[in-house]
């Protein structure tokens, strides 16, 4: 395959960025998208030019490091797929592919296609954990969890924190990520003691960094793990409940 790439290049966080065009010849359809970029980079380095910087780690769709805006879609044209699992057979010979980094004020560009997703860590720090020291793994049948609940929590826990939801959202909102993390713990018995503290703190930390949810639903098809919008409704409900419960506990007016 012979492709034309239009790639966003930016030398540093504050620097002026621009699109640069590269011809990518001899691309095999069984290459992954990142392998294709590797090949382009090898040629750039051989030619004495700076390679394109992009984030990647496990390359098996589970770490959440990679993430590119490909032809205006987060993670490219294939649904429920992270960029690393996207293969070149999804494109045709002669295509022009436009590659941009995630765009959000709280995801500042580090270089080229690499963004800093530290804002997600701030949200997790606010409550995306269970505070009790648990020791070794408990006996599996000690705390019964209904199958439906376990499934729903597991579906939410599939979130890899890649940031595609923020990238795809017209509002630059982080609701799908935060809701997945809230639902994952708030649905399970182990998450109950900190349930109301967790949702209040996580939502309020999220709002310091990201926009608000207009229910466009754009995040759901962008998510490589197929996290459902239902989690956002759960988070919205739990947030209001937390406000009521924490009001009682805190003796507020």
């Amino acid at each position, binding site marked *: 395959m012979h492709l034309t790439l*239009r790639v966003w290049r930016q030398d540093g966080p504050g620097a002026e960025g621009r699109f640069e065009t590269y011809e990518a010849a001899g691309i095999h359809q069984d290459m992954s998208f990142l392998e294709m970029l590797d090949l382009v980079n090898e040629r750039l380095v051989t030619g004495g030019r700076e390679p394109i910087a992009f984030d990647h780690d496990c390359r098996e769709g589970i770490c959440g490091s990679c993430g590119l805006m490909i032809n*205006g*879609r987060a993670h490219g044209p294939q649904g429920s797929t992270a960029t690393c699992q996207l293969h070149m057979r999804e494109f045709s010979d002669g295509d022009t592919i436009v590659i941009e980094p995630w*765009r959000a004020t709280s995801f500042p560009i580090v270089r080229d296609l690499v963004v800093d997703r530290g804002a997600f860590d701030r949200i997790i720090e606010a409550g995306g954990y269970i505070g009790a020291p648990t020791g070794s793994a408990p006996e599996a049948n000690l705390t019964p969890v209904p199958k439906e609940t376990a499934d729903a929590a597991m579906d939410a826990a599939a979130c890899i924190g890649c940031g595609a939801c923020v990238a795809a959202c017209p*509002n*630059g909102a982080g609701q799908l990520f935060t809701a997945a993390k809230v639902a994952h713990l708030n649905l399970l018995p182990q998450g109950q003691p900190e349930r109301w503290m967790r949702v209040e703190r996580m939502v309020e930390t999220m*709002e310091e960094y990201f926009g608000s949810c*207009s229910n*466009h639903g754009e995040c759901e098809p962008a998510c490589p793990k197929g996290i459902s919008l239902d989690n956002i409704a*759960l988070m919205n409900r739990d947030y209001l409940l937390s406000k009521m419960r924490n009001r009682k506990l805190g003796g507020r007016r």
Partner: protein
Amino acid sequence: MLNLRRARREQARQAPWIVSIYRTDTGKKYAMAISGVVLLLFVLGHMIGNLHVFEGAHGGTFRIDEYGEGLRDLGEPLFPRTLVLWAFLRIPLAAAFLIHIHAAFALTRSNRSARETKYQSPRDYLAARYASRTMRWSGVIVLLFLAWHLADLTVGVEAVNPEFVRGSVYHNLVSSLSRWPVWTLYVVAQVALAFHIWHGAWSLFQSLGINNPRFNRFRRTFAHAFATVVVAGFLSVPVGVALDIVS
């Protein structure tokens, strides 16, 4: 003791509970949804009331004129005339409008600042519909229309509706809708309203956290049905005027 006093002072400085919720974006979405429900109920009631126009005249007065008078008489003889109309319908409705608009402004500002640098290449939207992405424009169209509509048929501003006669609802709306620019304005505004409430009637469930596998699939159906029924009902009046059914 000192700590207790400090704690009390801290508490006094905190905003009231409901205000502190409204200050968050999620709280504003709640306010959007709840004021939206009030406005949806209003447009539904208004649409049903409009259908009196098709009942024509009865004993020398038009039924819709009697209906308009009836709204002013609501609560009589228990309450003074127009008190119920103002205290329970008009003022809460105006409050719902103001909250809805304020929350929309604040949320738009927050969303804009969440992505200061836009995408430099064209986006390919998968789920965001035309209606959801144009909420603020359809909202502005409906708001501008509302200003015209109040001046046209409620207050009767001379420049807007020169033939306005207070209390003659039927006469006023026919004389207004017989002018084609006004007719077009009404139809365009109703289409904008259709888009606006189609997204809103679904969106409010998510914002309020009303989500359950048992009824999730009915939420979209409800939005389709609500938007269709309300707008078809509203459009029936200008269409009736155009077809000379109402004249």
